């Protein structure tokens, strides 16, 4: 099985560094790769940027605001659902 790629892989990778003046920025992405003998799936998203300035390196995360809002809404619905169920059980 030597050389065979893993079925599922969750990796962080850094891209090429971009320099503007004294600032150097390196983008970082995280990718989920699922592979099976007759197909595959890749989900790749930006994770952060590494900013290097005056000899210091700082990680600035890239937040997917849309996803955060959407999942918060779904979590809210789930909480309301649980509350409704508990209230119905209490009244019975």
């Amino acid at each position, binding site marked *: 099985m030597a050389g065979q790629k893993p079925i599922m892989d969750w990796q962080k990778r850094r891209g090429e560094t971009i320099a503007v003046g004294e600032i150097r920025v390196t983008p970082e992405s995280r990718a989920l790769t699922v592979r099976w003998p007759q197909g595959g799936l890749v989900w790749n*998203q930006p994770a952060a940027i590494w900013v290097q300035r005056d000899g210091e390196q700082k990680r600035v995360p890239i937040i997917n605001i849309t996803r955060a809002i959407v999942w918060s809404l779904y979590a809210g619905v789930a909480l309301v659902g649980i509350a409704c169920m508990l*209230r119905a059980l209490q009244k019975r």
Partner: protein
Amino acid sequence: MDDIREFVTAKVDDIVEAKDLLNRLLTIAQPQAVFGEPIEVGEQKVITASEVTAGLGFGFGAGGGAAEPGEAKGGVLVAQNGPSVVPETDEETEKASPDAEASGMGGGGGGGGGASGRPVAVISITPNDVRVVPVVDQTRILLAVLSTLAAIFLMLGKLRRMTRN
């Protein structure tokens, strides 16, 4: 038979091509697929950051088999206990013999895939500062709000009916 074999072998080539396509799909896992090429605006450089999803699936199959005695083969019907048509020439005798080999092979394949991309943020780099500006997908949020409200109203309605009873 050779023609059929060639056809099936050609399908093997297609599997190789499909695997090549799968390997190319995996290059989407690289950061270059997510971060765009820097765009220079004066002293400033702008990079777009997007979320990318892609999937691919394919399948191939091939098979063959020999005809049972009694099945039509080579245009001559072969009876269970010998030929039903009395052969007149040696060639016909050979064709109609119950021991004669009659077989067939076939193969096929199919596949499908899809990809989607959505901007997540814009990175602005100036000689003095770096800013990450998030991109908000208003349509997606609006759809989520509407489906959330619908779910809440449904649950509250059900709760009201349950408490009345």
